[in-house]
């Protein structure tokens, strides 16, 4: 089960990495993290209706000087593919993609999403890390943001239940 403590750790990791704007679409496994974002005063939180909107919002906010992340389920990654390709990748926009890994080994929902998630990220040319160890959460967030800013590309962190 996801816990508020682990959600807080992710939020702290985002802040320490310098993220100051997060767009989001919910998933039950992201509930604690979303609650923490709603309550937080430092990070601008912009819920959107569909994940591809969030890629647009993050792109615009980056151009305006924000360090940005998009929080969603991997179904939302599928919804975002054109925006990621023809906006985020073609412009070269560093966006931290925080993706709940539905259908991961041991997860009983959306097994097809689990099957295609990593191949889709590979196909898009988006570098990613699967997060499985709560002790490494902050380090992996910082590393992902460094990779995103150095390459000026979106970089993904796949959030498994173990870190949520």
């Amino acid at each position, binding site marked *: 089960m996801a816990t508020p403590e682990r959600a807080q750790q992710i939020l702290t990791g985002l802040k320490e990495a310098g993220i100051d704007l997060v767009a989001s679409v919910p998933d039950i496994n992201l509930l604690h993290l979303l609650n923490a974002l709603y309550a937080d005063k430092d990070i601008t939180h*912009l819920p959107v209706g569909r994940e*591809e*909107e969030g890629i647009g919002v993050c*792109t*615009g906010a980056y*151009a305006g*000087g924000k360090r940005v992340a998009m929080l969603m389920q991997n179904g939302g990654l599928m919804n975002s593919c054109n925006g990621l390709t023809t906006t985020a990748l*073609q412009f070269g926009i560093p966006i931290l993609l925080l993706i709940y890994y539905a259908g991961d080994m041991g997860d009983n929902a959306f097994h097809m999403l689990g099957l295609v998630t990593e191949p889709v990220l590979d196909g898009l040319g988006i570098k990613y890390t699967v997060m499985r160890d709560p002790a490494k959460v902050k380090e992996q967030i910082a590393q992902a943001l460094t990779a995103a800013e*150095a390459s000026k590309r979106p970089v993904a962190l796949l959030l498994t239940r173990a870190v949520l």
Partner: protein
Amino acid sequence: MKRYECLQAIKPLIKDELFVTSAGGATSEWCAVRPSDGNLQVKTLGLCSSIGLGLAVALPRRKVFVFDGDGALWMNFGSLATIGLHQPKNLIHLCWDNREYESSGGEPTVSRSGLINFADAARAAGIQSSRSAESVENLVQAVRHALNNDGPHFIWARIEPGRAEVPPLALDELENKYRFIRYVEQTEGTSILRLPLPASYDHKATKP
């Protein structure tokens, strides 16, 4: 009314506002009328309204224009609700409605039915300042109102099909992005395009 004559008519009202424009005639004509590094072209159909929202939230003291199209807005219709939810006061969302996919060969959009009212839809989505314009004069009034009052604003510009004979934007996305962000940096006095510190600067060099 034609889009090009509308653009020429609103140009005198514009100072250093930022423009996020849907690819096609809206971009090429606007960049011909007002060449500026403050123009960003969006190739993803429909995403200009979302990019404009993010930009407006990041720069709340700067007016941000979105030049959308009827086909593009249909593709990302939910963005009206998202703009309505977040209420960016500085966003001016203008939809050039020619009732067709002009860049795709002129196929009809949802607007060709004559049944949809984009201005009513925007208002129903929570964008209180929503107007429609069917004459150049009305459009200029709507833009002046949007520039002088808090928004978010939506303007439904009902235009004739047809693109003026102007060249396409001569920048690819990378050059457009860099020039646009440098322009934001210069006019806002901020630093956006941060580069990670090279490893050799990361610590005091120690001689062997």
